[in-house]
């Protein structure tokens, strides 16, 4: 088994794109049901959602508010899972409910273990 990081990218800033509290509750259930299914296979390692604030530090002491180069692709959170290989990881990631929304994406990255 290898570890993979799933990065969730979606627009978490544009006001009119944010779900109503009722809808948010539906999304939370979908998300928890999906993660619960991964955890039930003993393949969940960890993960967190991220708040919308952020700072970006750049070369030459440049610090900017808001972490996002491209607002539509803000990182909303991450999850680390265990999978047999890339295919397995992608299969699990494909159930992620944020993929029901246009423009959203899940990036799957393998964790590199020091050799």
């Amino acid at each position, binding site marked *: 088994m290898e570890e993979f990081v799933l990065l969730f990218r979606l627009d978490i800033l544009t006001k009119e794109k944010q779900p109503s509290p009722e809808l948010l509750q539906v999304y939370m259930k979908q998300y928890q049901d999906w993660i619960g299914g991964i955890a*039930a296979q*003993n393949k969940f390692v960890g993960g967190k959602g991220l708040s919308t604030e952020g700072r970006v530090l750049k070369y030459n002491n440049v610090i900017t508010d808001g972490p996002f180069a491209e607002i539509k692709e803000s990182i909303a959170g991450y999850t680390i899972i265990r999978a047999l290989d890339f295919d397995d990881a992608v299969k699990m990631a494909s159930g992620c409910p944020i993929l029901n929304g246009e423009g959203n994406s899940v990036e799957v990255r393998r964790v590199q273990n020091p050799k």
Partner: protein
Amino acid sequence: MKEEAVIPHLFRMEYRKIVAVLSKRFGFEQIEIAEDITSDTFLTATQTWGMNGLPENPVAWLYNVAKNKAKNHLQRNAVFENKIAPELKYREFISLDPDIDLSPKNINDSQLQMMFAICHPSISSEAQIGLSLRILCGFGIEEIADAFLTNKETINKRLFRAKEKLRAEKIDIELPATTQMDSRLEAVLATIYLLFNEGYYSVSQNKTIRKELCFEAMRLCKMLVENETTNNPSANALLSLMCFHASRFEARFNKNGETVLYDEQDTGLWNPEMISQGGYYLNRSANGDKISKYHLEAGIAYWSTQKPDTKEKWENVLQLYNRLLQIQYSPIAALNRTYALSKANSKEEAILEAEKLNLIENPFYFGLLGELWLDIDNKKSIENFKKALVLTKTETGRLTIQAKLAKISEGNFIS
């Protein structure tokens, strides 16, 4: 109470208190002497009371005798330490004032401190449970052997080794420092929970012992929540969880001591007082920002006390299992989660999820699949129940599955 019943009763209630106080006073390296003196006290009581009848206040009598025996021991020790071995200087001066404090407060403090000494991460959890039963609960070696389905020698060896190890590690009988409290408390709670499970799910047919294991675990946990320094949200959640489970104790066994499955339990035998206690501690557990696995399990256990099959119940149970599995995976939680999914979402979704679990050596896995396929594809249901039947190790399990199989073929015959 009759005389012959008094001594075992007192032994169960008082042995652990005297041992805790004496061990605390002597230090862990002399725990065996503390145990010997305590046992000896009960022997003296048996002999004296047998001849002279019961004293007016048996507990005070026991404390007095224990005190005197302990003082004699300390004095003998002090003579050796202070007069014979002063040049060796390997031990600090032992006070010649051998006061033994058997006040309720000191008894309680000593037992709590003992709990932390015994549930020390340096010894195995099996050894922790054994020592807890012996020293914190006053169980006889034979009773412990019975609970673990093993013999007295094995238990004696296990306890001996555990004590050696604790001595070698120089474990003090004291409460951990505030900075370490949470992590050490976690180890104590883990042991208490194992102790409870040992009673609740044990293979031992001895119902009395099983029940006592559960109640002892609850008593120890209660001591923790009643003490200011050890009363934290996790401890309350654990106590709540145990109350909810224990509320079904009477309903879980029939007259022959066989297990009665949840669905077939007489809810009239569920203990409402225990359920409300569970609710009380669950409320108390809800402060602080940490949600432990005990919180989630207590939540699930709460819903188990609500028999009606409502959508709300299963949605809540599903979400609690989703979160529990993210904190700690176990096959049984994975299977229960999938069952809750079938009730909250749909059987079809649950079948897809169940097949991913692939727990092909677990009879409950096939039992779950059998249950999920039922009424969707009865042939598949039967296939799975048959696989479960081959794998199941208990008689109750076999009987339950056979009954299911009979019911399905009956249904097929009618249709």
